[in-house]
């Protein structure tokens, strides 16, 4: 097998950027290999992808040094459309990639550009729709597909160009767990086709099957090698801002032998070395113990039907939320999570049923009063940023409520302190990183000191470091007395931070209870397409009360100590 891609001392600085996005990348990828690239936000992962088909430096200009060779030819000397015959690029944002009015035309777009005969286009549509499992959706409108299906279509439409190399830039980031699995299994089939495959991600779960894993930090290629070597190097992973596999972390902290990456590996190691016996979790709190008897928010018989749709998006929801709770709402895309929480601040009005905030019906409360008591942070911070300075942005709601300049000043300073952005007052919100923009969005809601803060996927699209910062910040807010509700796809976030979990499926609440109890019921979670991460399965197997590696260690050490005493 020959060399497919060759990076020859590649450096690139985007025009008008201060720091280089890539610094002296030297690497080669053999034909038919699967390379998994990980790194923090801004590490240069996307730039690597863009350099493969000439988007860097042809569309994004800047200072380009070194070379990228594909099959011995220099990429920067070729036009992007020409490169599309060799390199396929799938982007994170599937919405922007799909622009045709039906699935088959989306598939045909690339081959049409290559001026292939109609019969050949027909063959490719047929082949690759089957390949990504969308053959039955041929005449559907792309916008009516689920997230996982959209991304599969995006991949299919690239495969229809039959490129030798396929690069995917964070293809699973915006997807729910089911969508992630769909994409990873498609990636698996692509590998069997002997295509060279590059996947960029900041989650390590897909990396286990790769031939080679690269770690990137600040534009540099820090490490590369087989996954067993790279993924087990916890220090380097953390240095690059990647969440280390929790099971491995547990093993290291316990000083247990071996480097397991999956649940099965972990169990066989524990059994082999006779480290511990599986145990059933005892004394699981079945019913939620509430902190007060009077609910902050009460939902009674809520039903909702979207205009122009016949389907019930929410059916008969009854729910009480108490002050001081930290709730995670889980469920597949389309299960009704966002529809439900949008009722909490009256963005949507119930078709039937009623919602009470502090005992008063939302119907009787003025808009402004609701906005003041219930803060809502949208998934994409860019949907709300508009001001010239951070100060103006964060103080906007207070100004709307007619507060005095002095009070605004104080509240803004306080909010910025909580989100850790003191000193940013005069910066331009748009020029900040995604993680910072997300925090500005939270601060702008926080400034009014709402009792209840709702966040729609606060960690999506952030790297591990930013995810942790965001969640630690929410934990602090929760301790200060704010009630927090998050919608999330990230089960580890829910497991580590929330104290109550609500699981939704098809517009209904199917599970609602304390975090530990919910995660103990693996079967029911799977029924809602929520696949528990290995560490949770292991903690269920070992029967620990905590779900977080660090806390499990304490518990397990105690257990081992008692075992020794008995002996």
């Amino acid at each position, binding site marked *: 097998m020959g060399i497919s891609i060759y990076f020859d001392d590649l450096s690139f600085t985007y025009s008008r950027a201060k720091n280089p996005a890539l610094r002296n990348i030297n690497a080669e990828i053999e034909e038919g290999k699967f390379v998994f690239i990980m790194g923090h936000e801004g590490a240069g992962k996307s730039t690597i992808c863009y350099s493969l088909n000439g988007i860097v430096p042809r569309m994004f200009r800047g200072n380009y040094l070194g070379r990228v060779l594909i099959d011995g030819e220099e990429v920067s000397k070729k036009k992007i459309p020409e490169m599309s015959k060799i390199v396929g690029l799938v982007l994170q944002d599937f919405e*922007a990639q799909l622009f045709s009015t039906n699935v088959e035309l989306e598939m045909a777009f690339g081959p049409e550009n290559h001026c292939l005969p109609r019969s050949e286009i027909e063959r490719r549509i047929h082949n690759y729709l089957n390949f990504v499992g969308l053959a039955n959706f041929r005449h559907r409108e792309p916008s009516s597909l689920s997230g996982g299906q959209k991304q599969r279509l995006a991949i299919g439409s690239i495969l229809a160009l039959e490129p030798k190399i396929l690069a995917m830039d964070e293809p699973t980031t915006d997807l729910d767990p089911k969508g992630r699995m769909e994409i990873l299994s498609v990636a698996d089939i692509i590998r069997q086709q002997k295509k060279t495959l590059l996947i960029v991600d900041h989650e390590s779960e897909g990396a286990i099957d790769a031939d080679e894993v690269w770690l990137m930090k600040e534009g540099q290629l820090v490490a590369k090698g087989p996954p067993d070597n790279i993924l087990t190097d916890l220090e380097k992973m953390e240095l690059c801002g990647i969440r280390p596999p929790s099971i491995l972390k547990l093993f290291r902290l316990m000083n247990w032998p071996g480097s397991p990456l999956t649940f099965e590996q972990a169990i066989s190691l524990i059994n082999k070395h006779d480290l511990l016996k599986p145990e059933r979790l005892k004394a699981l709190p079945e019913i939620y113990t509430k902190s007060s008897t009077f609910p902050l928010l009460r939902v009674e018989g809520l039903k909702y039907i979207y205009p122009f749709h016949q389907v019930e998006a929410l059916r008969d929801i009854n729910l009480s939320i108490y002050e001081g709770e930290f709730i995670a709402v889980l469920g597949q895309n389309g299960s009704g999570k966002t529809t439900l929480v949008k009722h909490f601040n009256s963005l949507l009005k119930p078709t039937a049923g009623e919602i009470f905030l502090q005992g008063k019906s939302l119907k009787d409360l003025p808009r402004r009063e609701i906005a003041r008591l219930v803060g809502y942070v949208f998934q994409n911070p860019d949907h709300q940023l508009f001001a010239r300075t951070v100060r103006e942005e964060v103080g*906007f709601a207070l100004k709307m409520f007619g507060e005095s300049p002095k009070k605004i000043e104080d509240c803004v300073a306080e909010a910025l302190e909580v989100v850790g952005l003191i000193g940013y007052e005069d910066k331009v919100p748009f020029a900040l990183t995604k993680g910072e923009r997300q925090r500005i969005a939270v601060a702008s*809601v926080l400034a009014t000191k709402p009792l209840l803060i709702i966040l729609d996927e606060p960690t999506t699209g952030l790297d591990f470091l930013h995810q942790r910062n965001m969640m630690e910040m929410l934990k602090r807010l929760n301790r200060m007395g704010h009630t927090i509700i998050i919608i999330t796809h990230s089960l580890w976030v829910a497991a580590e931070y929330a104290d109550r979990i609500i699981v939704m499926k098809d517009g209904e609440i199917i599970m609602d209870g304390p975090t530990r109890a919910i995660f103990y019921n693996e079967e029911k979670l799977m029924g809602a397409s929520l696949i528990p991460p290995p560490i949770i399965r292991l903690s269920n197997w070992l029967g620990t009360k905590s779900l977080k590696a660090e806390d499990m260690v304490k518990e397990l050490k105690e257990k081992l100590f008692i075992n020794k005493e008995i002996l």
Partner: protein
Amino acid sequence: MNIFLYLDKNTWIHRLDPRTKIIGTIILFIACLCFNHPLYMGCLTIGIIFIGISSKSEKNIWRLRFLILLLFLFSTVLWPFFLNGKTPLLIFGLLKLSKESLLYGLAMGIRLSTFVIIGLILLSTTRNEDLTNGLIRMGLPYPIAFAISTALRLVPTFAGAGAIIIQAQISRGLDLESGNIFRRASKFIQQAIPLFIYAIRYTNLLAIALESKGFDPGSKRTLYYEPHMKRIDFIILTILTLFLGFLIYLRIGLGLGAIIPERL
């Protein structure tokens, strides 16, 4: 949420060649310009609504009923003030209302909403890609045809983003329901800026996606949905042309259908 105008049905209009539909639309547009008498305009509109129903586009017409009604009302109310007619109805200082100007305004109102309905029928029965292909086959350069269809394609996308932005700002206490028109206009900025930024980011990504799929405006490409002119297309175009000829004869030859003959 479905915010596209195209309705995937299989009616006789859907099956027509996109070129027939584009030319037919233009012919009907001209037909609307033939009369300025509300009665004649009304008959034309009823005919066009029938075409709309037979192509199952009534859902979209109903969806945009407020826009159509608004155009109708504006035109009907405003036109009479700018025209003078022979039979005065009301004189109020400088304001003069006459029977002719009132009827003319009514006709203009009908004409404007009929334009919208004709356009809606075209967009409800023609895929974006078919429209592009039709325009290309009619001799329009590919980059221009592509730009037109992309612009049409982006309207619903940006409308969807706009709706989310408004919700996001309402959640932050932006009050869109109260205040006079000037106060409301001043709140426009909080919605416009995020939308502009979104549009710029989105089009940037779209450009990357397009070029990555080998899109090259300068080079030749295959059309997967190659339009074909069938017999029915020629028949319909002939009928429409004869119909237009007949209308022009009515207006110019016989001087019918005009309330104010010297105006269009």
